């Protein structure tokens, strides 16, 4: 067998209809990656730069794990790459690592793909001696990803689905509020859809529970060079790629972030439609 080369995809698995897990050879990144950091990848020579959280890193094998959802042209094109094929570019690890300390009861609130991003953080928090309670939410059962993995690194796990097809019916903030009221929340970290993170911030604000939100604004370079990723934190502008991606959730202007995330949505739609026209087989499966 030949030695795997940098940027080679050495493992690929579909976790749900549109969610995939890949392992990519990136020895320098794998050696340094810490929970909460991300990479920027490009699929081909005229591709976009897309930020993806490092869901896991194996320094010995020199590989990083990326979990992503097919939502636009670039991620669909990424989904076409098979084991043995190569990403065009991978750069990282970028951003600050999540601060891991012994907080006591550490609650993780993850929605959708955010679960994958929280996996290394849950593991690190637990290793630091925290009692880790994970709340995972999704719209439907089939959209839940990595629940088993999360369970293996949490002391308690609560799953919610909007339609009740798995776990508790309802949204993640209901069990979160219960924990806060019971005094079982010393630290909260959340990752997922911006609107969910906004409600998580509201749920812990009054009780003053320290809460971090891992933000996912639009990015280009990921090194502080463009300001595409700017977010308002406590009334001040910050660059999420270099100052974050984690910020005090109680200070984040989530409304502005949600509106900024929509800047290019018409273009993204157009790009995806063109791609799906060229790939009719994928148009049927999801889109």
């Amino acid at each position, binding site marked *: 067998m030949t030695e795997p080369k940098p940027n080679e995809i050495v493992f690929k698995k579909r976790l749900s209809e549109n969610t995939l897990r890949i392992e990519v050879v990136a020895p320098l990144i794998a050696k340094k990656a810490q929970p909460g950091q991300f990479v920027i990848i490009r699929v081909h020579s005229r591709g976009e730069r897309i930020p993806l959280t490092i869901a896991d890193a194996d320094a010995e094998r020199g590989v990083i794990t990326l979990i992503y959802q097919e939502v636009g042209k670039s991620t669909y094109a990424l989904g076409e790459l098979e084991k043995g094929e190569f990403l065009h570019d991978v750069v990282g690890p970028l951003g600050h690592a999540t601060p891991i300390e012994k907080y006591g009861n550490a609650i993780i609130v993850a929605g959708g793909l955010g679960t994958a991003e929280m996996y290394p953080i849950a593991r690190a928090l637990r290793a630091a001696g925290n009692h880790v309670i994970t709340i995972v939410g999704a719209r439907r059962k089939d959209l839940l990803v990595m629940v088993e993995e999360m369970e293996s690194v949490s002391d308690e796990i609560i799953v919610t689905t909007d339609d009740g097809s798995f776990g508790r019916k309802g949204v993640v903030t209901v069990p979160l509020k219960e924990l806060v009221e019971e005094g079982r929340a010393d630290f909260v970290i959340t990752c997922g859809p911006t609107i969910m993170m906004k409600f998580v911030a509201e749920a812990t604000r009054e009780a003053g529970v320290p809460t971090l939100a891992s933000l996912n604004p639009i990015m280009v370079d990921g090194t*502080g060079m463009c300001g595409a990723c700017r977010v308002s934190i406590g009334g001040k502008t910050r660059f999420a790629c270099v100052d974050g991606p984690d910020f005090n959730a109680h200070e984040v202007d989530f409304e502005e972030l949600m509106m900024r995330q929509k800047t290019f949505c018409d273009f993204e739609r157009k790009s995806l439609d063109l791609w799906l026209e060229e790939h009719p087989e994928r148009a049927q499966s999801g889109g």
Partner: protein
Amino acid sequence: MTEEHKGKTAENTETSEKKKEKVGPDGLTKRDRLKIKRHAMPEQAPEERITNFLSVVHGYTLEMAYEEAQRCLDCPRPKCIDGCPAEVDIPAFIMEILKGDLEESYRILKADNALPAVCGRVCPQEEQCELTCLLAKKGPVAIGRLEQFVAEYMLDKYEKEPPKVEKIIPTKEKVAVIGAGPAGITAAADLVKMGYEVTIFEALHKPGGVLNYGIPPFRMPRRILDAELGSIEQMGVDVRCNMVFGKTITHEELLEDGYKAFFLGTGAGLPTFMGIPGENANGVYSANEYLTRVNLMEAWDFPNADTPVFVGKNVVTTGAGNTAMDSARVSRRMPGVEKSYIVYRRTRNEAPARNEEIEHAEQEGIIFKYLTQPIEILRDDKNWITGMRCIKMELGEPDDSGRRRPVPIPDSEFEIECDTLLVAIGQRPNPIAMRSIPGLEISKWGTIVVDDETMMTSVPGVFAGGDAVVGASTVILAVGHGKQAARAVDAYLAEQRGGS
């Protein structure tokens, strides 16, 4: 060179009888030369060029280059060289044009400057070599255009028939160059020629720095840029992209890996915002983001290239440096744009951009609003920019920089309707690389502090140059620093060797 390309020669002038005067390789005397007028640059017409991203200038033809070269007096003590931070042997390369040996002319250019095609196109020659040219008052020799001509002529030729490049076999220590902008490229090229084993670590996915992400293809065609950048790899420099120094690899790791000296050419890539209300509105970009999307990521060719850029009908750019001109001129070329404004708080006289860039912008129909200061960005309920509130300014007393300070005129506020705003009011150095080296001294402006002579930082063996040291400046200054630092690295390593 063939007969018909020779332009004016001794035969077609009446001067051959004046035997005592100095006669050049083309048979002309000084008096003949003084009669020839500076050749204008052939360009795309403004109304045509605003519809494309192709080069604005066509470049001289061989005939024009020959005739322009004939204007050079080949001064015994040439002043033009003093005006060039890269100390290019200007009369020598021009004389080779007259001799018809463009290969040798190119070799002379490349001996002192790894980026002649780039410099020919983007240097402010009017403030440098062409300012100190003896003919400056009458119309200096078009040194920049000749440099561009020779470099592009040879790059074209080499593209068709690649030259035999001797890859230099390194015999000396490993040197790490951080950043593949003009400063880093130059330092790397000089060091590899001296026999060092040179690796460039570049954060982005392509080398070039500002040349690639900032300067638009209509000023710096990418085919030419890629060819010029590619030549340093042919020389044996290992260019490694997607390497963020301080993140992907560190100073300490590279030391362990046997690198004996470092050159930081990390530029001034951190955008500055105005700090006025509404600046995070949708449709407001730093010039860096906008230009990166369009130039590096090729958003001008969306959806063939994947990266999009939103540009509306009325685009305002604030600032009046080269970055601002490039932003406004890119906008003029984007489909759907009706008006492209430049809003600047001082006047044309104080504008830091090259005069040529301002002229080009004016020709292209950019609307200049001088003595105007933005004070607030207006938004709709979806966070999209709808306009900008501004205040009129007048020039008051000179400030520290010697320029007259703009002061607001009371009750002169007005609004400009716009749906896109590009903030081009300056850049500072990116701190990632410098903060990762313990003990590296940084100034209060965020630039790296170096010894003026040696370009060495406060950390032994770590050198720096270009925009990272002086703040946003010019390509040629970065080239000059790269050369200076390469010599200093060589001296430093020689000393280390001697000492051990």
